[in-house]
């Protein structure tokens, strides 16, 4: 479970990037965080991963305060960044191997890695291909494979479908659904309203560091989510 309690981040120059964020992602749930660029979505993820320190509040992963015991907390979370770059000179399998070992999974064999990659529908030729020759879609899939191998109960994703063609995005979403069904808590930051509507159990809209709206699946399916989202964005522009 992921939980943010009054999570606040104010930078030295006075910028309030996150203002008393309260959210919760339970097991088997996908929470999509929507918002304009600079609204605070990435800051939230950075706080959960202890990349920066909060000025107030707490970020809890499975009940462990990330700021107080980051090493323990990170055992229970996987991360897929917006641009999965990895190590260009290594093959896909070598990259998986490295991160698997980091995540504590030391005994996997080549066939195991191949199996994981097949699961995410990566083409066979890509298994031993150097990462610098991967397309964006393939890289994102590899990123989620790393998360799958780590098998942590929580997953954080930052704009995972940005720049993907519709087919690749659809495949990616399918994988996320499967992970949700396995009981993982997933927090996903995205611009992609279409996909958010497709898989989110909860949707939150962030504006200028504050979580201004939260809707459950039932609620936002009834409403016109696009319209609401655009309205909030407009206000942001006008303001």
């Amino acid at each position: 479970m992921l939980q943010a309690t009054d999570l606040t981040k104010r930078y030295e120059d006075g910028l309030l990037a996150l203002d008393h964020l309260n959210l919760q992602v339970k097991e088997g749930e996908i929470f999509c965080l929507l918002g304009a660029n600079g609204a605070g979505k990435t800051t939230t993820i950075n706080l959960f991963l202890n990349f920066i320190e909060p000025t107030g509040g707490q970020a809890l992963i499975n009940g462990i305060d990330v700021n107080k015991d980051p090493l323990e907390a990170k055992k229970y979370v996987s991360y897929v960044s917006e641009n999965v770059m990895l190590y260009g000179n290594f093959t896909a399998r070598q990259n998986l191997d490295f991160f698997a070992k980091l995540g504590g999974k030391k005994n996997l064999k080549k066939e195991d890695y191949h199996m994981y990659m097949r699961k995410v529908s990566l083409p066979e030729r890509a298994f031993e291909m150097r990462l610098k020759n991967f397309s964006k879609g393939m890289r994102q899939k590899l990123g989620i494979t790393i998360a799958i191998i780590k098998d942590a109960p929580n997953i954080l994703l930052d704009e995972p479908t940005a720049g993907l063609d519709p087919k690749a995005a659809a495949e990616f979403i399918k994988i996320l659904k499967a992970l949700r069904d396995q009981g993982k808590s997933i927090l996903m930051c995205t611009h992609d309203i279409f996909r958010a509507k497709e898989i989110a159990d909860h949707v939150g809209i962030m504006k200028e560091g504050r979580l201004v709206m939260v809707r459950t699946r039932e609620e936002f399916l009834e409403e016109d989510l696009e319209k609401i989202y655009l309205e909030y964005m407009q206000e942001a522009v006008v303001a």
Partner: protein
Amino acid sequence: MILSIALKEFYTNLVSARFVIGFLLCLLLIPLTLVVNINDYKSKVTAYETQKKEAAEKLKIRVWSYLQPRIVRPPESLSILSRGVSYQLGNYVDLTFTAKPFKASGQTGTSDNPMMGTYFSVDFCTILAIVLSLLALLFTYDACSGEREQGTLKMLLSNSIPRSVVLLGKVLGACLTLLPIILFCYLLCALAILISPDVAFSADEWLRIGLVLLASIFFFATFAFLGLFVSSMFRHSAASIIVCLLAWVFFLFVTPNVSGYVADSLLETPSEQALAVNTNKFTSEKWKEAEKFRGEQPRGAFDWQYSRPTAGGAVETSGATPVFLEWYRQGNKVVYTHMIESAEGRWLLEKEFLDRQDRQRLLAERLSMVSPAQVFQLLSSSLCRTDVESYKRFMESTRRYREELIQYLRNGNLFDSYKFFTAVDPNVMMTTDEYYNYRTGGRIKTEAEFEQWLKDNPGKSWNSIYTRDRPSVDRASLSLLDLSDVPRYKGVPGGVALSLQDSLVELAILVCVSVMLFYLSFIAFLRYDVR
């Protein structure tokens, strides 16, 4: 965990362009410098052989006052690794009674053409320092900033792995990458030495090379940690590489020259020419004083065959009257005692000059220790016995040997013996009367008659009454002195322990600086913004 990261670094580095180019640089430059330096060493050996021959010739003397042995310092084979000052200073000393050894003589530089002195030659340790430090920086300048830009730093740190582990893994990875290159360079060096017929190393020398290797590792570590530190201070690799490269140019190229130039301007050394004028004046005045101690040349004392004075002022007499020989013999002890004492006075002037030169050198060295590369150079030249301290030890040993020789002559009462200045038997020499009789073919029979003749024939030259040339002895027929008893020069003391003692400060600096830089990188990386 550390090992995984280290191995990942290692494999990444291995296939990178920097590794290949770095390796090629070493492959190209190291053999080139080895060939050049072995060649220079060969010419040193040739010069050494010549001087040894001349030294042997100098021991073929007939009189003790001619004892001016030449001490030749064998060329240092480790100068192939580190030239130090071995090509700037001479390698032999000619001992005399009248002066303590001041500076070693001998050809300096590697070419007979004085204009070629404007080129510098680089030794193995310098090339190693240049290439190693560059590679160390090139492999670590983007340790933090590069991974951050790549996005993999976030991936790494999203796992349950402490930052210290990541850093140590990177350090280990850089070491794993560069250690083979260092070892390869030394392997090339060892190969060149083993193959070359002109160079032979003993166990002592191999031990020293081992120590230089150890020093190189610390040196490389210093630059690796410097690169790491710079990387952890900047978010962008582009900025980090600029700082690293400018630091590299500053430490490797600017500092050695600036420190020398600044020391040269800050501390003035007096002119050696002025010193030479002063000391020569001093010595010649002392000679004049000394000669006065002989007293007036008595009547009947006359010499007609003698050599030109040697560098030490000694004269070998081969044709003189017994009265002369006796008078001269008695005077010698006082004269030489006086001159040996005066040597101390002269030495005071020379020592002051040498001390000032040394102070300037020390200032330059201390200023240059800002750069780890220079520290490494000083360390390696000390281990290779090509530094100034080794030279000073050699000069001290020649001064001590001179004292031994003087003591030997004193103990044997040789200063006031006939053998000190003449190889002929005084008993068979002509008196003055016999001399004039001989030269005028009997026409003049005594000295008194000759003086009378001169009075009677003013304006006429002596030659007009001589019918025979001067009676001369063929010096080559006289016997040489037996020098088997004379104490031999035993060489310069100095083992590895002594060199290490000399270079303790430099070693300490290298170790401390690398530890400090590592600590600083550690602190900086712990706070590094990974976003």
